[in-house]
């Protein structure tokens, strides 16, 4: 077979960072090619160069032997390249159908043919098995549903090359399966697929070949994925061996720390009750839209409660006030880091210190030295890849942003309850196990931890107990000894007989 897509000596630098240095590799026609690497290794940058969004400082891209000289996204599209970016690129105010057609509306004399617009999308979504109303506004969809819309966009257009940057990071396993079957179909048509993911399972399930990036350089190229192993890839990525990713160990549990009684809210109609003990890690599992994130936001006071009581060590936490929750000793790492997590335009340092600085700012006057020290500590501890703590957080890679948000809360003092929604979304394998270690450490110190995750292996790997949610209700409560993939998944699936009550 011949090389269909070729990267030749691609380099790209940002101030203080060489994101890509002389990267060259080839992908064959009809192949699914994996792209792996630590957070900040340069994967998204490579994809952005491919998409025509960013020009490389040096190097060429060849498709079907032809050198590509495109200078814009439009040119790349005409060359048959479609990219699904790591950060969702949808317009919330427009409908699903309009988003799918954006940039190439079906029109005659500038007037949109609205029937074509809706109908083509409807039939296409049906065909590929995505259950979303084409005339719904994207703003009304959950993140997972939005991710599916993005994916539908790539599939709808007949592209020669499709690049997917961590497409499954906010999908449930069921939706991931839909995606995988779509990829299989595209592959059969001869489309080249570049697939970025931190999930080794997926890489082995999907990919024919693989490239590993490290510090912007090509660390390894495997033309046949079958000829490598997980362990080899991990060590190529992080430069060391990681034997056991989860690393769970038995911990002594104390008395009840967090108690939740009859909690309900606008999108969580059925009251929820549970408690978490000192030192306990409680996992929440469920399918997309099961209501876990809403539960977490209600708990923390990010959204207004309808009813219910939340107490920490017997003291009630006042509703609808995140600040009060923090003061009471509870913090939340939100699932949507772009909208709820990072403070754009501000430095890493400020993003870390935003809450904890009150402990060392007498009369509201800052202590720049302590802030700097704090930032440096967590940049090192969480291995945030950045030239400086003064870097604007928006310039960090997705995974590194997530680490900074984590640093924000780890730097807080007197925290008794940590609620963490999708803790390792977009985080590389090496950092993942470090984050788990930190969670165990915090739990061992007596903290009650609530972990929400859509990755079943993760929930099973790190939780002491799992609550399964389904359509806004608690469907099961499983202790570690009884963990069983099958029964947990079954509990998470909506009951076919019961009406959708959410």
């Amino acid at each position: 077979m011949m090389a269909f897509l070729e990267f030749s000596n691609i380099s790209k630098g940002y101030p203080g960072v060489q994101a890509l240095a002389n990267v060259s590799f080839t992908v064959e026609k009809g192949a699914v090619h994996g792209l792996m690497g630590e957070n900040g290794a340069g994967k998204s940058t490579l994809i952005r160069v491919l998409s025509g969004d960013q020009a490389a400082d040096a190097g060429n891209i060849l498709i079907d032997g032809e050198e590509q000289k495109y200078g814009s996204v439009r040119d790349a599209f005409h060359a048959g390249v479609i990219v699904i970016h790591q950060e969702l690129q949808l317009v919330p105010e427009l409908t699903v159908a309009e988003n799918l057609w954006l940039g190439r509306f079906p029109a005659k004399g500038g007037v949109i043919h609205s029937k074509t617009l809706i109908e083509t999308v409807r039939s296409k979504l049906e065909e590929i098995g995505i259950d979303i109303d084409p005339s719904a506004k994207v703003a009304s969809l959950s993140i997972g549903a939005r991710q599916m819309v993005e994916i539908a966009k790539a599939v709808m257009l007949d592209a020669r090359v499709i690049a997917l940057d961590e497409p499954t990071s906010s999908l449930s396993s069921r939706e991931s399966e839909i995606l995988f079957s779509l990829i299989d179909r595209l592959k059969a048509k001869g489309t080249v697929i570049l697939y970025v993911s931190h999930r080794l399972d997926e890489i082995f399930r999907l990919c024919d070949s693989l490239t590993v990036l490290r510090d912007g350089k090509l660390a390894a190229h495997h033309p046949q994925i079958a000829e490598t192993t997980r362990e080899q890839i991990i060590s190529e990525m992080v430069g060391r061996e990681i034997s056991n990713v989860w690393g769970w160990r038995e911990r002594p549990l104390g008395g009840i720390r967090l108690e939740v009684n009859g909690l309900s809210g606008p999108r969580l109609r059925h009251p929820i009750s549970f408690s978490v003990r000192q030192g306990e890690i409680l996992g929440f599992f469920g399918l997309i839209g099961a209501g876990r994130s809403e539960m977490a936001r209600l708990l923390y006071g990010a959204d207004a409660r309808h009813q219910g009581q939340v107490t920490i060590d017997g003291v009630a936490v006042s509703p609808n006030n995140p600040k009060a929750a923090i003061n009471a000793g509870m913090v939340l790492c939100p699932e949507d880091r772009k909208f709820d997590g990072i403070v754009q335009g501000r430095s890493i340092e400020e993003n870390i210190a935003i809450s904890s600085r009150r402990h060392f700012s007498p009369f509201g006057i800052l202590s720049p030295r302590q802030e700097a020290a704090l930032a440096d500590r967590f940049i090192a501890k969480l291995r945030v890849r950045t030239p400086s703590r003064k870097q604007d957080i928006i310039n960090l890679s997705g995974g590194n942003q997530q680490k900074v948000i984590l640093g924000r809360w780890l730097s807080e003092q007197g925290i008794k309850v940590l609620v963490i929604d999708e803790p390792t979304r977009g985080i590389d394998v090496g950092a993942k196990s470090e984050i788990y270690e930190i969670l165990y450490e915090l739990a061992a110190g007596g903290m009650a931890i609530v972990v929400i995750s859509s990755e079943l292996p993760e929930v099973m790997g790190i939780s002491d107990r799992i609550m399964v949610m389904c359509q806004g209700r608690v469907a099961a409560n499983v202790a570690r000894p009884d963990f069983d993939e099958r029964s947990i998944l079954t509990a998470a699936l909506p009951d076919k007989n019961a009406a959708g009550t959410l």
Partner: protein
Amino acid sequence: MNSLKKILLGEQGLVVIFAAAFVIVSLFVPNFLTERNMLGLLQSVVTIGIVACTMMFCLASRDFDLSVGSIVAFSGMIAVMVSNATGSIPVGLLAALLCGAVVGFVNGIVIARFRINALITTLATMQIVRGLALIASDGRAVGINDPAFYQLALSRFLTVPTPIWIMLILFILFGFVLNRTVFGKNTLAIGGNPEASRLAGVNVVNMRVWIFALQGLVCGIAGILLASRITSGQPNAATGLELSVISACVLGGVSLAGGRAAMSGVIVGVLIMGIAENVMNLLNIQAFYQYVVRGLILLIAVLLDNLRSSAAGRRG
């Protein structure tokens, strides 16, 4: 009961609130609901209404235009001066439209291509264009030689004056453009998420330039009609227009954060501003109190709309 609630809280809530207010005003303010007063009222909002059409696009794409008042004055002056100089009204009108479009185009180029903040750019062109208008006329109004020019504003069709017809046509036209054309959807997309639009292949720079040029052209139309109504080109005309137009749009639900706009809302916003003025004068409210009342009406209108939409449970 429930269906009433639905109507009030629906998409068209502002329109409903407005209709209710209209009925109340009609009942309680003498001389309000007469044909004469209605036509007078509509004529009084012609400038704001026309300019609001394109300002809606500008705001919807997350831009901002403070130069509209100056462009209206300048193009009105040009219409009169060129008509006088050439002796041909059509040539004058063409020159005015061209002038407006050129200023708008320059705004667009500077803002979109050189990526200069829209507020500063249009604040600058607002002053430059006003200065040019003053220089061209030596600070004095320019009279119209050919009385036929007045006919633009005075002529009527089915008893309704031409300027009102033109405003209505533009309302329909731009309402259609916003909702039914690629141009309109791209405008909303740019405002909703410029980055996503760019990545989807929308030519954001060109779109923004076009929107500003269109805004300038439409200001040219408003300027011509104004000059005809006031039978002269006045370099000081339409000062402060920008704020009235922007408020009318925002009142009508156009989001300054971009991405949200509806022609029906803008029309209602324009009418609220016009009716407030009209009714205060009909009721003989003293000048100083008019300031206060005008401010309160603005506040109440957005407050009501806000109650409505937050009751409807939209996300902040």
